[in-house]
């Protein structure tokens, strides 16, 4: 061809031929591109449908989990296993359910549609109750400070103090303690299962925390004070004496002297100094300076708000404003306990039992500027499966006198007796008496002293602004059944933030 071109014989035709060849190649390229693009679109469509199918399969299994989470047998059939299936027009799929942690599952699906494979996976988590302390989860909730009110006592249950707290005289709290101010635990044998404090914590003498300690302030330890678990301190650790049996995490400085000792490791964010010796003298397991201390999250230790709950109005419950009727030493309908009712009760023989019968319905009783102090050894027992509400208004008060029991029958059942006050009303437990109830008087007072009638002075849950407890009284927590009561405004559930059991999709992880 070159020869022909050189000869310039018929070269024009050759040029045209070359152009046609180039054009043909170009056409082939364009055609190929178009075909590939069309194929790509088809693959894209199939992949997209595959993804929708995979998500559909995940949706199906998640729906089953949501509806059957409480059925351990049903869940065991899913977790760790692979399922499969198909949907008309949507292809086939396989689904795996894996447990990532308690209350956290991953549901993954792989779908095949027209030969294309897609995956979708979702993280499914169990919801928790709103962050914070549920007031009725405590044996005592002090809606103020308790620097002097917690005298010699044993409290079996958690305690919340919305202010500073001082515990001394050998008192014991066998539960977790939350203090929204400074905390002082001194004197022999003061123990708690665990402690959170918004302010400084002072442990002295043989003050003991038998669980973890958390404080947003400083920790000062002296004498033979002991923390039997870990200590986490946003502020500084001042330890002239005392013992931390496990680890200590300190946000700021650490100071040691005397016979202080940390059996675990120490991590601190500031400086570590000693009154004598070296750090290893006080922390044999080792001390490390850190730069990434994360302050304690206080949210789990915050309380839900405390609404003031008033008695139903006469419009809401007209019967409540009629005088309560006592028939055969039994109250079986709502009414007001006024002076005439108190007089009737006082007239009963010593040691009598008044029954409040809640077998058929809830019983509402009202004390309106009325002191309820019988003083004749009267036992008041609640029977039935419904609730009894005693509303206190004005200057009302309840006094459980010597040899008197006021609570559930049979004893030991969860209290369905609610004493609710909207002001500064008070409840007093005198020597040799017992109250089993849920007391909710956010601005009120509870006082207790003297011997119990049997074992405990109080069984239930008590929320007041001020407590005055002494004489080595013993309180026992019993969880009130707040569903269906005015206290149901609080989330029900486990203590200190446990609760709701709903599952939901936290996130879709991929496509």
């Amino acid at each position: 061809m070159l020869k022909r071109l050189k000869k310039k014989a018929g070269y024009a035709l050759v040029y045209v031929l070359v152009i046609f060849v180039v054009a043909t190649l170009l056409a082939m390229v364009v055609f190929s591109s178009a075909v590939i693009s069309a194929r790509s679109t088809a693959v894209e469509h199939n992949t997209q449908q595959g993804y929708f199918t995979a998500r559909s399969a995940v949706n199906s299994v998640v729906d089953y989990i949501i509806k059957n989470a409480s059925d351990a047998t049903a869940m065991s059939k899913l977790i760790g296993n692979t399922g499969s299936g198909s949907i008309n027009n949507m292809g086939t799929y396989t689904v795996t359910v894996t447990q990532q942690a308690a209350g956290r599952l991953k549901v993954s699906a792989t779908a095949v549609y027209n030969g294309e494979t897609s995956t979708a996976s979702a993280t499914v988590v169990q919801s928790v109750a709103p962050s914070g302390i549920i007031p009725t989860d405590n044996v005592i909730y002090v809606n103020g400070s308790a620097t002097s009110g917690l005298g010699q006592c044993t409290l079996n249950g958690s305690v919340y103090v919305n202010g500073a707290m001082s515990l001394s005289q050998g008192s014991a709290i066998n539960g977790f303690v939350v203090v929204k101010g400074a905390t002082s635990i001194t004197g022999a044998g003061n123990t708690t299962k665990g402690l959170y404090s918004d302010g400084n914590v002072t442990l002295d003498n043989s003050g003991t925390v038998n669980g973890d300690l958390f404080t947003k302030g400083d920790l000062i330890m002296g004498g033979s004070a002991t923390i039997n678990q870990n200590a986490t301190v946003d502020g500084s650790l001042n330890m002239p004496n005392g013992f931390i049996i496990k680890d200590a995490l300190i946000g700021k400085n650490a100071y040691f002297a005397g016979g202080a000792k940390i059996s675990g490791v120490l991590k601190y964010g500031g400086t570590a100094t000693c009154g004598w010796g070296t750090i290893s003298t006080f922390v044999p397991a080792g001390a490390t300076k850190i730069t990434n201390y994360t302050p304690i999250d206080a949210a789990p230790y915050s309380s839900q708000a405390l609404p003031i709950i008033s008695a139903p109005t006469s419009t809401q419950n007209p019967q409540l404003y009629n005088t309560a009727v006592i028939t055969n030493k039994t109250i079986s309908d709502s009414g007001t306990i006024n002076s005439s009712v108190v007089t009737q009760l006082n007239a009963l023989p010593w040691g009598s039992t008044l029954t409040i019968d809640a077998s058929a319905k809830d019983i509402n009783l009202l004390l309106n500027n009325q002191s309820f102090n019988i003083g004749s050894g009267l036992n008041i027992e609640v029977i039935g499966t419904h609730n009894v509400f005693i509303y206190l208004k004005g200057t009302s008060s309840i006094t459980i006198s010597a040899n008197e029991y006021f609570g559930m029958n049979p004893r030991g059942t969860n209290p369905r007796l609610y004493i609710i006050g909207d002001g500064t009303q008070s409840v007093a437990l005198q020597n040799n008496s017992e109250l089993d109830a849920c007391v909710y008087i956010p601005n009120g007072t509870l006082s207790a002293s003297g011997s119990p009638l049997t074992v405990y002075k109080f069984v239930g849950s008590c929320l007041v602004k001020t407590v005055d407890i002494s004489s080595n009284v013993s309180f026992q927590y019993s969880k009130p059944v707040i569903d269906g009561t005015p206290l149901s405004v609080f989330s029900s559930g486990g203590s200190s933030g446990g609760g709701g059991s709903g599952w939901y999709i936290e996130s879709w992880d991929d496509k």
Partner: protein
Amino acid sequence: MKNFKSIKNKKGMTLVEIIVSVAILSIIAVFIITVFASSNNIIGNNAILKRNGENAAAGIENKMAGLGADTDISIVGQQDASVTVTFGTNSVVTSGKIVASSDKNSTEKYYYFVPN
């Protein structure tokens, strides 16, 4: 002018050669034109398919997000259905609705299952 003279001075192709060449070139030309036209057609249709698919997918994605259908671009319908996932000998059966979404000008659909 020089080239023209050169052509004049050279011996030309025969008539048969010219006829054969023109025939071949014509066939090639028709092929090229056809290929270009087909390519153009494919590309055009593909663009439409792609847009229809995107609109149909948007209908499903709106459903996933709990939003209403955008009736300007897609048509969404649904019917009762159940989905079964078999784990060994155990079946998880979920009742719900199959949602079908298509572009308003197309029959191409995507399907999605939403439990009740």
